[in-house]
């Protein structure tokens, strides 16, 4: 009999880890935020004349709420394809640092890169936030199926929201739709705060909150991209300086 060390006690099969991730998604308050957000997006998509299948395919393929809003609004109002692609691309640039700071947490020295394709595709704000919070308690070998389970769990929540949104479209009172739109900022602010551990995390949050609106007000092109690079580097720099002076 092997000794009951924490690693082999907690070792689960791939399927069990996937289910644990799926369950974690539905136990997270963010699943309900995702449902609410997608009710709003689906109502918008419906009003712009897109079919339900198209809306659901857009969630599976694009999997980034702000990009999906930009996509339907631009296409429905006759935006040029190139300009629309550019606007979607700019809004999704945040996915780059998110994938860069998620994959190193789940890969192992011998991980085949093909198994990281799905976790990279599932990376979106909701999955990224919950993965960063929950992964430290999950053993290395279980992390890839766990993140896939999280991704499928949140995607199912989004599709449930899409169905509800199509059903409710046209009858959504403005007060309710304002409340649904407010879900994103208030839940992201709280869940990002909950994840802050390093000094650089806290600084990046505080600097980003100030810099984001300033860059937008000054009408700097690609304002969020600059907020990330300037704010994130500043936060990291101050963190390093403090460590060096200790």
């Amino acid at each position: 009999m092997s000794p009951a060390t924490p690693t082999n006690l907690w070792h689960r099969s791939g399927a069990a880890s996937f289910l644990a991730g799926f369950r974690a998604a539905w136990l997270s308050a963010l699943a309900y935020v995702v449902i609410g957000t997608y009710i709003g997006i689906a109502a918008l998509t419906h009003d712009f004349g897109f079919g339900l299948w198209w809306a659901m395919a857009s969630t599976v393929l694009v999997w980034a709420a702000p990009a999906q809003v930009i996509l339907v609004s631009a296409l429905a109002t006759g935006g040029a394809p190139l300009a629309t692609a550019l606007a979607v691309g700019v809004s999704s640039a945040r996915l780059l640092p998110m994938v860069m700071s998620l994959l190193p947490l789940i890969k192992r020295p011998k991980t085949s890169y093909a198994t990281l394709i799905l976790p990279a595709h599932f990376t979106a704000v909701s999955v990224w936030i919950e993965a960063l919070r929950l992964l430290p308690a999950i053993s290395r070998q279980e992390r890839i199926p766990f993140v896939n389970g999280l991704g499928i769990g949140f995607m199912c929540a989004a599709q449930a929201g899409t169905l509800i949104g199509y059903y409710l479209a046209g009858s959504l009172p403005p007060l309710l739709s304002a409340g649904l739109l407010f879900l994103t900022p208030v839940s992201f602010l709280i869940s990002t705060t909950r994840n802050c551990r390093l000094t650089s995390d806290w600084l990046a949050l505080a600097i980003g909150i100030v810099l984001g609106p300033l860059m937008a007000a000054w009408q700097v092109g690609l304002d969020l991209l600059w907020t990330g690079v300037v704010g994130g580097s500043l936060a990291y720099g101050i963190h390093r300086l403090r460590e060096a002076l200790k």
Partner: protein
Amino acid sequence: MSELNAYALLVLVGFLPSEMWRVLGFVAARRIADESEFFIWARSVAIAVLAGVIAKIILFPPGTLASVPLSIRLCATAVGFLTFLVARRSLLAGVAAGEAVLILGALAYGI
């Protein structure tokens, strides 16, 4: 817009411009070890972008949220955040409190 056209546009101007960033992150992540300095920097950049997105939505909101006055939006955010801190760091309690203030405030304002 024909049905086929709508799906082609979805892939070309929706999927590809978003997925491109994930692919770039995937390629970059091959060389990054967790706990490395580059990893901490990438994490800071991701948090700063997200913080910028949050602040922008609250200050320059989309759609019907824009009809709720700025003071109510800021107040609802503050109450949600403070409730989270007081209520043993519960995300659900914070979001519920923030939403309650936003909706009651909007009702009082006459939306």
